[in-house]
């Protein structure tokens, strides 16, 4: 799975996710990547999110929207919201991660599995590429 969240000069957020899904999938199985609110979500008032991981769990938690909802209803900061949501995924037995970005340009890269590849670049800081 690959994904991207972006913040433009006008202060607008967007999110996208694209995937081949799961090896040996059957019966038209679909994971979280194409499900708005699970694998992808964006709202200028809260954040943009793209997820990657064990899709069944990400759908059940409604991961991307869950992060935004914490910000919207409780004013939870982005990183804390992302961490709380990934903890819910872990509690159910799922793993994976998210990248998230808010309208101030704050980012979260929360994950609970090894091998997450991610990178970011902003107008006021150099590019960072990280592989765990």
């Amino acid at each position, binding site marked *: 799975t690959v994904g991207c969240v972006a913040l433009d000069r006008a202060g607008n957020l967007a999110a996208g996710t694209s995937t081949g899904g799961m090896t040996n999938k059957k019966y038209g199985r679909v994971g979280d990547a*194409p499900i708005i609110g699970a694998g*992808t979500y964006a709202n200028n008032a809260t954040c943009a999110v793209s997820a990657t991981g064990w899709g069944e769990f990400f759908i059940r938690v409604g991961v991307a929207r869950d992060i935004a909802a914490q910000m919207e209803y409780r004013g939870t900061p982005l990183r804390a919201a992302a961490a709380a949501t990934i903890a819910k995924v872990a509690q159910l037995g799922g793993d994976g991660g998210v990248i998230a970005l808010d309208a101030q340009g704050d980012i979260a890269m929360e994950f609970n599995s090894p091998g997450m590849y991610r990178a970011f670049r902003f107008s006021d800081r150099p590019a960072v590429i990280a592989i765990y």
Partner: protein
Amino acid sequence: KRYGLVIHGGAGVIERAAMSPEREAEYRTALNQALQAGYAVLDQGGSALEAVTAAINLMEDNPLFNAGKGAVFNADGICELDASVMDGRTQAAGAVAALHHIKNPINLARDVMLKSEHVMLVGDGAEKFAQSLGYQLVPNAYFQTDWRREQLKKAQEQEKEKAGKKTAALPAAPVDYFTRTLRWG
């Protein structure tokens, strides 16, 4: 005002410790290319939506990632692709699933959002919609790589092995590195 982007190339794929320096360099180069492509759009005043699709297009075209070319195989031995996109300004959204012949699924997800009255289209219907917009269908072989074919073979062998050993008394298999990499490629 700050602008920029964050990308990911999947989780639970090859762990760094199990990766050769050459392979790690390939991944870093690919991530950097996608990052710079998206950033260039933003730097030139483009929209967040345009930046997202520009960055994802490069990863879809790169066989290192499980998206577009180089995607994992389904049980029928073909690649089956999904994508979605959302615009934070309008909360418009578009999604596609179970595609077999669309080179860049994220572009079609964007077009579902911008050029249809729907949010999600799947399978043959989504591909018919793509054709109505002038998309060229590509053969499924375009997405297929030997590395992913080998992963499918291993997954199916493992599945057969498990089926042979299955008894009601056995606990569920733990999630280990092997199953994780098979799941997500």
